[in-house]
């Protein structure tokens, strides 16, 4: 009884071992015959900050400017110091912006990007522009100005558009 159990247990262990090893090998080896995986890792230019690094440096500079403003408001920085430092960091931010423009600028115009964003928003809300305009009055209830279909506030008086 006991011996039979042991050999059964041994076989089970062997089977599980092979199964585990095989599935691990398959999973790890998979990228080598996976289709659609690029061969080369694209080379980033050496010594040059990439686009995302530039963006995060820009964000950091903005944050610094905001923090200076807060420190100034809270009375921790004198007026002269605040002016000097915030000018310095604005110059830094501007430098980064210029670098972004020079290296990555001109890819898309602002209008193209805005159009894309609007389309994307529409797609997400699953509302075709026509249905939406049909759904509600196209004049402001406060001042009577004509509304655009996508407007959430009146362009003339700022009244919230009722959905």
């Amino acid at each position, binding site marked *: 009884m006991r011996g039979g159990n042991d050999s059964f247990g041994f076989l089970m*262990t062997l089977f599980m071992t092979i199964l*585990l090893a095989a599935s691990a090998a398959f999973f*790890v080896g998979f*990228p080598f015959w996976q289709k659609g*995986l690029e061969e080369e*890792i694209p080379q980033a230019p050496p010594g040059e*900050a990439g686009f995302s690094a530039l963006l995060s440096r820009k964000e950091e500079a903005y944050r610094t400017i905001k923090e*200076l403003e807060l420190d100034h408001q809270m009375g921790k920085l004198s007026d002269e110091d605040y002016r000097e430092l915030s000018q310095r960091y*604005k110059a830094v931010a501007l430098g980064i912006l210029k670098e972004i423009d020079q290296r990555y600028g001109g890819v898309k115009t602002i209008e193209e990007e805005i159009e894309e964003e609007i389309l994307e928003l529409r797609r997400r809300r699953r509302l075709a522009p026509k249905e939406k305009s049909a759904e509600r009055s196209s004049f402001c209830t406060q001042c009577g100005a004509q509304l655009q279909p996508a407007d959430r506030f009146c362009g003339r008086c700022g009244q919230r558009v009722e959905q």
Partner: protein
Amino acid sequence: MTEIGYVSLVLALVLAAYGAIVSAYGAAERKRRFTASGENAVYAAWALLSLASLALIYAFLSRDFQIEYVYSYSSRTLPLFYTLSSFWAGQKGSLLMWAWLLAAFSSLVLIQNRRQNRELIPYAISLLMIVLLFFMVLLVFVSNPFSRLPSRPQDGQGLNPLLQNPGMIFHPPSLFLGYVGFTIPFAFALAALLTGRLDDSWIRATRKWTLFSWYTLGIGILLGAQWAYVELGWGGYWAWDPVENASLMPWLVGTAYLHSVMIQEKRDMLKVWNMVLIILTFGLCIFGTFLTRSGLISSVHSFGESTVGPFFLGFLALLLGASFLLLFTRLGQLRSPHQLDSVLSRESSFLLNNWILVGAAFSVLWGTMFPVISEAIKGVKISVGPPFFNQVNVPIGITLLLITGICPLISWRKASARNFQKNFLFPLLASGAVGILLASVGIRHFYGWFAFTLCFFVIVTIGTEFLRGIRARRQTTGEGFARALFSMIGKNRRRYGGHIVHLGLVLIFLGITGSSAYKVEKEATLRPGQTVQIAGYTFKYEALEGSSDAHKDVVRARLSVYRDGTQITQMKPEKRFYRVQEQPTTEVAIYSTLKEDLYAILEGYDQKDLATFKLFLNPLVVWMWIGGLVITLGTTIAIWPEWKPRRKSLIYRETSDSELRDSKLVT
């Protein structure tokens, strides 16, 4: 089932080695398929280690005492709760936990960075897998948790009664989370050195990991202190025990690192220093794990003599040697183009804090290692006791507290002397008044008086920081008070989360000061009905009671506590005899209030119910645990993910960019 556990460990070892090699090769040769395969090896290793952990849990639950580890740390009568926590009660299980956490964190790093930091990831993964490989070698060849006894014993040896405490559930895992968590920033730092991408992207990528590890390590230490306080029964929570020190050292250096990376993020400075700090932090994490297991130093928690010590030491030497060598070769590229704007700036106060924290860590290291060093050199083991540590660390702690108070009053980059004076005036006057008040009500102990006054000073500066921020916000936005508070914190999470963490630390300081400078202690041998007085409280010994259950006998003394003639509580300190271990343990009775803890220990008794008690009055201890909760709140605020739309609103981005262009700077 348990055989599968060992098989999984062996396979995970192979995968760790494979992952380390292909990731490094793929990264160096820029071959995508290789790095992708390395990533899959990480996931697979995680799955296999999970399987191994499940196998060990299964062995515990099925009471498979043929497994030596299960035999040594559990028994049939052990409740389910503690049976599960036995997983990490000994060395083998805790090494498995280390490995599992490391694999889990590595996998999380991969998921987190699917689209970012693609340059750093393969190298970081390779390094993480090297660390994992080290633990897998230990688990497979030296310290196998699935090793079997020649025959199957009827019952296990049971869990050490001291470990049968809720603290056991949280303290070790929390420390491990911290130890393992610091591996991530370490791996990224080395990856940055290897790739030469020495900008701050590695710091950004690991900022939350650092905060998380720092928090879990710190809370782990605090939970350990609380456990010692309620369970070990000597009246205190910290004894400068080598293993306590082992966890404190990486926390101190980690705290320094946490602060100094901010300067690199903001100012692109201190690059070398940050590298040194993270390498040291990780080295100290490994060193702490080593100290506990080496048998080098005797301590309440060490796992006794064990064979893994030399392996840890070798690994540590290799790690530190390789890391510092690599750092040395990159020194030229790490030079910072920037300088401090002013001596009186938050940066310089951070630097000071860094030196002090590292100095504190070094003094703790020195005190911990001195017995070993003296034995090696002079052949005599000179023990270093709490007096040394206190003498060095009390002034250090007080200085840190002072900086914590001053720091928020100083602006980044440059603080103007005049505003500085203006900002200081109120907190200084307020805490001066409190200092005089404290002295006049009879607080005499110098350090105690000074620390209390400083705690108050820090609380005032943090408070004014909040009030000023709210006022500034209300002026610009016109929001109400509560709304301004919430939106201010929400918009500056790191800043105000940090302030809240500091507040928690001040509360912990308050507790430490109160309970160490003003502790009252009394020992008394009483007959039933007799009373003893301690600091205005009267303890009346009522009776001795006995009871027993399946695995222990309990003797309990009943003490009634009176204050000004009225009974406030009844305390029941115990002595317990666990049958399996055949050793008595002390179960203390604690009565906590915000002002002070009454702490009673039943030291001994005889047949005629004559009992000896040790009684303590520990002021303000509760504030340490409250401080821990406040730190939890602050860390949560700082670490909470910022709501980020997939893509930042174009309109917002363009406005702030064009505003900048329109400003007069454009030439």
